[in-house]
């Protein structure tokens, strides 16, 4: 997949990604406020296939999965960061949104065009010609992502188990 980079700093937290006061209104309304306190135009301008890049500890804070869900709803195709908060990382993968750990995420500039190979663990910066190695996603999580997230993955697994039982 390839797309345009939006670049953020360290510790982008879940309250910034999914502000609590809009949580009850559902994902469509909530996503309009995603990242607004640090980048007011983000929700308006982000496009299908764009890539969100953070530095350390992206997604710090709460267990609310609306944080990755809002990004996915807005069309973000993949997340890249030096590190992710553990809970956020789990939530992103479970929703089928790839989260790629890349030590060089700080070398990506806003607006760079990136091509990402999540399976191989490689990012190409088409704007600068650089290539970055990333941590490969563990096999069982890659399987989840390939199925489109935990729910479709479970659906497949349960159908298979029922098939085996009959």
């Amino acid at each position, binding site marked *: 997949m390839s797309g345009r980079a939006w670049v953020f700093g360290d*510790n982008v*937290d*879940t*309250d*910034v990604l999914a*502000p*609590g*006061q809009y*949580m*009850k*209104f559902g994902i469509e309304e909530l996503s309009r406020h995603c990242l*607004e*306190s*640090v980048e007011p135009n983000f929700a308006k301008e982000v496009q299908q296939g764009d890539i969100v890049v953070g530095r*350390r*500890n992206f997604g*710090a*804070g*709460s*267990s*609310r*999965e609306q944080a990755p869900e809002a990004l996915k709803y807005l069309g973000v195709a993949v997340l890249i960061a030096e*590190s992710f*908060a*553990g*809970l956020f*990382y*789990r*939530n992103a993968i*479970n*929703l089928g949104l790839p989260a790629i750990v890349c030590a060089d995420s700080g070398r990506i500039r806003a607006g760079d065009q990136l091509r990402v190979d999540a399976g191989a663990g490689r990012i190409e910066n088409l704007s600068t010609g650089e290539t970055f190695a990333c941590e490969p996603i563990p096999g*069982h999580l890659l399987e989840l992502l390939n199925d489109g*997230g*935990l*729910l479709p993955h*479970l*659906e497949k697994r*349960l*159908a298979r188990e*029922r098939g085996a039982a009959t």
Partner: protein
Amino acid sequence: MLERLGAKVWDPDKIVLITDHYLPAHDDESRRILRTARDWAREAGVRRFYDGIGICHVVLPEMGHLRPGMFAIGGDSHSPTGGAFGTYMFGIGATEMFGVLVTGEIWVRVPQTVDIEWSGRLSEGTCAKDMMLAVCAKLGLDGAQYQALQYTGEAISALPMQERMTLCNMAPEVGAQTGIIAPDEVTLKWLESTGVTGVDPSPWQGDPGAPLGAQHRFDASSLSPYVAAPHSPANSAPVEQHAGQHIDIAYIGACTGAKLEDLRMAAKVLKGRRAASNVRLIVAPASRRDQEIAQAEGILAAIMEAGASLLPNACGICAGYGENRLTENEVAITSTARNFKGRMGAASSQVYLASPYTVAASAIAGRICDPREMLS
């Protein structure tokens, strides 16, 4: 969703359901969310359903559902609170929780142990919240890298259970998956008081010489009250650095900071005093049980006589819900866990985190102040 997958709950007897975030319902959306929870408890056959009696992390051990050696997960990031009971417990999101409800399974990468050792004894006017803010200052928001904190040392052994809960509760603020404390006599006493007997704590102790991912040492006896400035718990420093800061609201609330022990601390400062006229003092006891005991002990009266408004036993302002959430440019000092930008209301509001002692003292002074001035 269960229907779509043709699935059933794997074991209703291993599920506890507690309502706390959207209480009290003050609009149609909150009412709908709570209604969904109530209907689901009935349909799924979940018998351990606690509706509106307090915050899940506090109610769960109150009702005797946690014990050493358990492996448990919760649908909220502060679920590591259970680590105070020697339970390995952490928070997950809604989709992953659904997977657990259906399969009874979850994946974990075996964590490294990060030892947080506290020697010495706390002095008057300091508590677990100050200890944890000092840990946040040293480790930073991602210092623990999703590993497991274990709290050890003389100062930890001396803490009552609800203070231990505060330490484990805030393990996520340094990026840990969980925080855990080995069970001892204090743990067993609490368990017995909730009807849990026959627990052998010996298998659930750390092995001597076990490899550690990291070790951080702190001294409780020289610890000052700590305050975290906006907008991060890691932005913590001894109270004198923020003394004199103007505040509009003093909030004693949440699983982190409104348990019975927290209310006792607040009352020690508030007794016989009145909150400053420019400060709204708001108290939301973390559970009904804790509120009832506080009432019986006369603590609640001391708090109310200081001019506090009492809110229901729920997450309230800490999670940005309800009519009392912070408005534009309001400055609050709170006993809660997290002060990220906009969490408790408007993006321009400012939240300082502190202990119940410091929040109470600041309410009286009308500005951030060292509670030790009012305790001596």
